[in-house]
């Protein structure tokens, strides 16, 4: 992309491509997300190391990597949970460090853990987020019902979330994230702990939403097959850096005709990851999630 392709928004300072990509009839502005020289240190450990990344408007972008690769830290910086240096992250041209509240209005976030409130009904869970995102009172009831229906939860909306299966809870969390109609949906391991049928159900809803709205999706996953099938592009992170970036087919093709994304993963990250990567915290987090799913 050359500078001639870009125009700058006078109020937000966002740079947009002047030639819209309109295959869904909606102008697509670029980029939805831009990280420039993003770095995060915890003591002596460099969790994210000078990361450059651009996610195009409307694409499903996968952030892959082993435990400890820096995926979740990157996500936490994008979602404003961790501080980022000014200018290092822009969401639709808005600087995350300078305008946190504006960025929070643009994103929807589903954390790795199954985090719906088990005591509340599905409808109450979603209504809370509608209020927190200032969905206008006159539209709120309809909007909550609409996203619950989109997630195929309309029939169980008035049941406590503790009676839901793992897949239903995940779809409920998607409804919570989508009730404000975010521009960028960020999913941290959305299918961890789910069985194949539930995984399929979650992805079907995500694809349905992105097709209808042109919403950009940033997703982290450990499942290479899932990334291969669902993501337009993927970035493979290792030790805080992006080691490979491109469409899954391109990355597979770079290794050979029969290569899988698993092969690409191994080629860039090595086989000794299981012993070296991740911490007790990762294990605890995965265990908690598994406990809540089962």
């Amino acid at each position, binding site marked *: 992309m050359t500078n001639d392709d870009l125009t700058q928004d006078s109020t937000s300072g966002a740079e947009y491509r002047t030639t819209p990509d309109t295959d869904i009839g909606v102008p697509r502005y670029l980029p939805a997300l831009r990280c420039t020289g993003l770095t995060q240190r915890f003591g002596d450990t460099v969790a994210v190391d000078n990361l450059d990344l651009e996610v195009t408007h409307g694409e499903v972008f996968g952030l892959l990597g082993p435990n400890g690769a820096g995926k979740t830290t990157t996500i936490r910086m994008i*979602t404003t949970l961790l501080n980022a240096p000014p200018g290092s992250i822009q969401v639709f*041209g808005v600087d995350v460090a300078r305008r946190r*509240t504006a960025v929070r209005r643009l994103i929807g976030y589903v954390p790795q853990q199954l*985090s719906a409130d088990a005591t509340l009904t599905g409808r109450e869970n979603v209504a809370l987020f509608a209020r927190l995102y*200032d969905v206008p009172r006159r539209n709120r009831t309809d909007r909550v019902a609409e996203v619950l229906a989109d997630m195929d939860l309309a029939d169980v909306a008035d049941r406590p979330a503790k009676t839901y299966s793992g897949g239903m809870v995940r779809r409920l969390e998607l409804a919570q994230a989508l009730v404000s109609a975010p521009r960028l949906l960020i999913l941290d391991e959305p299918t961890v702990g789910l069985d194949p049928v539930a995984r399929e159900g979650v992805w079907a809803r995500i694809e349905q939403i992105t097709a209808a709205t*042109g*919403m950009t999706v940033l997703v982290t996953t450990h499942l290479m097959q899932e990334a291969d099938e669902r993501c337009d592009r993927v970035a493979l992170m290792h030790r805080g850096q992006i080691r490979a970036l491109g469409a899954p087919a391109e990355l597979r093709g770079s290794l050979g005709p029969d290569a899988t994304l698993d092969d690409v993963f191994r080629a860039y990250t090595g086989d000794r990851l299981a012993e070296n990567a991740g911490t007790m915290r990762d294990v605890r987090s995965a265990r908690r999630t598994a406990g809540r799913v089962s």
Partner: protein
Amino acid sequence: MTTQLHTVDVPPDPGPLKQMSAVISRTGAMCLVELQKLRHDRTDLITRAIQPTLWLVVFGQVFTRIHAIPTGDTPYLDFLAPGILAQSALFIAIFYGIEIIWERDAGVLSKLMVTPTPRVALVAAKAFASATRAVAQALAVMIIAVLLGVHLSLDPLHFLGVVVALLLGSACFCCLSIMIGGLVLSRDRLMGVGQAIMNPLFFASNALYPVQLMPGWLQVINHVNPLSYEVDALRGLLVNTPARLALDFGVLAVAAAVMISLAAALLPRLTRG
């Protein structure tokens, strides 16, 4: 599916008035959730009523009979009931920090902190949500107290004052708990610290005995203990003992505001790890 993303509208940053409005509306939303939780599961209300009931039935009645604690013209059970009401609210509030850590572990806190809700609003919302629970709990304790023969004031204005005192006291102690949670970062440690500070707060207050009976050093602690001001206000409003209501409410309001600010400053520590 009807939503279409035709443009990327970046909303302007809210001004002070909008931020204040956001704090109030978010606090209301979280209090509503707390009431919804209570409606779905009332067992917590019942189990939490056991301890204050024991204090009133066992401790209160025994000490009323032995006349060990001089409370003037006020029967000891009447003197004790507002103290137990405040104690009950304190116990709920102090362990609310554990709920925050549970929410951190379950991903709920991260999800809330990614919403466009000011940190102060999140903390205030949690604080007043704990107060909502405390008020519901207080109603149960007041019913038990009346059944035991305690003479409670029926003045609606007094009752409104009781609600405000409980709200401010619970907000203060809930935020103290969130603050500690933000420092110790684990449920086990918070349980330990919570236990370590809860009883000193309770016993170094006027909940069980008049201030005049305390040794000098304990009176000094009592004067800086917000629980004492909460008990003084509750006692004045519920059983009409002499109280410095303006001072009590002033101290509670300042303490709640300070604690909410400190807890909001420490809240991000919980989601950084």
